[in-house]
């Protein structure tokens, strides 16, 4: 098997798209191609990550459409990967396998989602298709409701306060405010969202005990990465970043089926597998992008991945260890909370953000002391399909 490197990255602005889904994906892909400087070299495969185009945008077979618009026909291998909100990292994993096996040399992975083409009820409904059809969906279960039930148990067991959840949102909004591609570039304060006189009007319940600012926005956006064999990577313009490890695991579809519903077993297993492949440990990681679709998830994932002991993630947060400049900065890009969450694209955008950090190109939100190792968790369903990635600067 060959080592695989990321040689180019690109991303659109996140938020409410001014462009069609395909145009967004073309722009992100073009950015990655220009960033790598591949010149006349042929792209062998295109893997597209998307969750809802057939429902929300009336388009299916998205990878064929992207290959068409990028004039990469007829030689290019292509397919669309749908793995819920973990589609992005899944598509990168397909790219990794293609290059590592020798099946392809240059692979473009592009994630894109245009969710605001439908209204919020439709968007909530569409994401709730991830739940168990007969045991959850028919009761009106949505992803925020699963997160709400998870949060209540977690708070009771580990002594988390609403302030801890708010601290995640405040940190990630502060980070995202410095990221010009983020969806919500609005710094928020504890007074504004929790303790001040108007706080609870600004921050109503979504699914108790989760409030509006505990949930990520519904975003449009596209991101892309270009992969190449590590031995070729130095021919290109930018500092290569190696995909050192990837791991994945699949948990029960219905949350009620898990022996301990506060455990995110698939997160733990995916992380363990990614670290084993990379021959690295949590203590070696200098920057992480975790899937904070809900504030509680950043805390719970930081524990399951081995960065903190179970039940102690919120204490590290309190001590400021997860801020930019802290011991382990988490979500310096703003995370899903502020950068945004175009569902099928998110896993690709996390990797784009880590590559910028490992190259030292993240600008205003760059983690200091040039990080060498990055880590991402892309979380599908309510933890029923999880992909973890370890990246290493250089080849």
């Amino acid at each position, binding site marked *: 098997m060959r080592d695989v490197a990321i040689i180019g990255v690109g991303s659109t602005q996140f938020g409410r798209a001014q462009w069609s889904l395909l145009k967004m994906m073309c722009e992100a892909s073009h950015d990655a191609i220009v960033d790598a400087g591949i010149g006349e070299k042929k792209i062998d495969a295109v893997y597209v990550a998307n969750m809802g185009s057939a429902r929300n945008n009336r388009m299916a077979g998205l990878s064929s459409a992207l290959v068409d618009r990028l004039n990469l026909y007829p030689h290019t291998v292509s397919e669309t990967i749908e793995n819920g909100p973990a589609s992005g990292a899944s598509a990168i994993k397909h790219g990794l396998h293609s290059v590592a096996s020798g099946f392809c040399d240059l692979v473009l992975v592009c994630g894109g989602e245009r969710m605001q083409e439908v209204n*919020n*009820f*439709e968007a*909530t*409904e569409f994401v*709730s298709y991830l739940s*168990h059809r*007969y*045991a*959850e969906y*028919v*009761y*009106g*279960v*949505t992803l*925020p*409701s699963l997160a*709400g*039930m*998870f949060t*209540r*148990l977690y708070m*009771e067991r580990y002594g988390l306060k609403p302030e801890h959840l708010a601290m995640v949102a405040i940190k990630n909004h502060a980070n995202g405010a410095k990221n010009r591609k983020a969806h919500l570039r609005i710094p928020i304060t504890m007074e504004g969202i929790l303790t001040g006189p108007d706080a609870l009007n600004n921050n*109503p*319940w*979504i*699914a*108790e*005990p*989760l409030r509006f600012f505990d*949930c990520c926005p519904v975003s449009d956006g596209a991101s892309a990465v270009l992969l190449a064999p590590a031995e070729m990577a130095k021919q290109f313009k930018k500092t290569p970043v190696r995909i050192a490890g990837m791991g994945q695991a699949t948990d029960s579809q*219905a*949350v*009620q*089926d898990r022996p301990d*519903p506060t455990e995110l077993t698939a997160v733990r297993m995916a992380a363990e597998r990614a670290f084993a492949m990379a021959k690295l440990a949590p203590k070696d990681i200098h920057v992480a992008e975790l899937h904070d679709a809900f504030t509680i998830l950043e805390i719970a994932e930081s524990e399951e991945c081995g960065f903190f002991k179970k039940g102690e993630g919120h204490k590290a947060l309190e001590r400021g260890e997860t801020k930019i400049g802290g011991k382990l900065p988490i979500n310096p890009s703003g995370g899903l909370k502020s950068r945004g969450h175009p569902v099928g694209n998110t896993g690709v955008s996390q990797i784009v953000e880590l590559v910028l950090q490992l190259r030292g190109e993240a600008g205003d939100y760059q983690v200091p002391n040039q990080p060498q190792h990055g880590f991402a968790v892309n979380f599908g369903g309510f933890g029923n399909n999880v992909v973890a990635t370890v990246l290493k600067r250089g080849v």
Partner: protein
Amino acid sequence: MAMTVEAAKCTNCGKVSYPMHFYCPACRGTKFEPVPVEGEGKLITWTRVYALPLDYAVLYTTLGIVELDMGVRATGQLDITEPKTGQRVRAHIGKVREINGKDVTGLVFTAV
């Protein structure tokens, strides 16, 4: 209108599972007989949801996960004004949703 929610009892080992999987989680058997999800149990966790999907013309719904004395866990709606984690509840069947204009029935839990 379905008046029960069915769990699956493995005809080989007797294990009751809900929701049903293709294989019995205990013995990998593939034959089951239906048994109703019913009786009393303990509320493990709950939420009141204000951001609803399609088909709901209400301000909020209340959802919970219940550990039933019959040995399975079930997610359902709560008809309880002030739910408390750990409280005893009883399973009933009621309307839980409308899909394409048709009523869907399912588990509704009340306080004991």
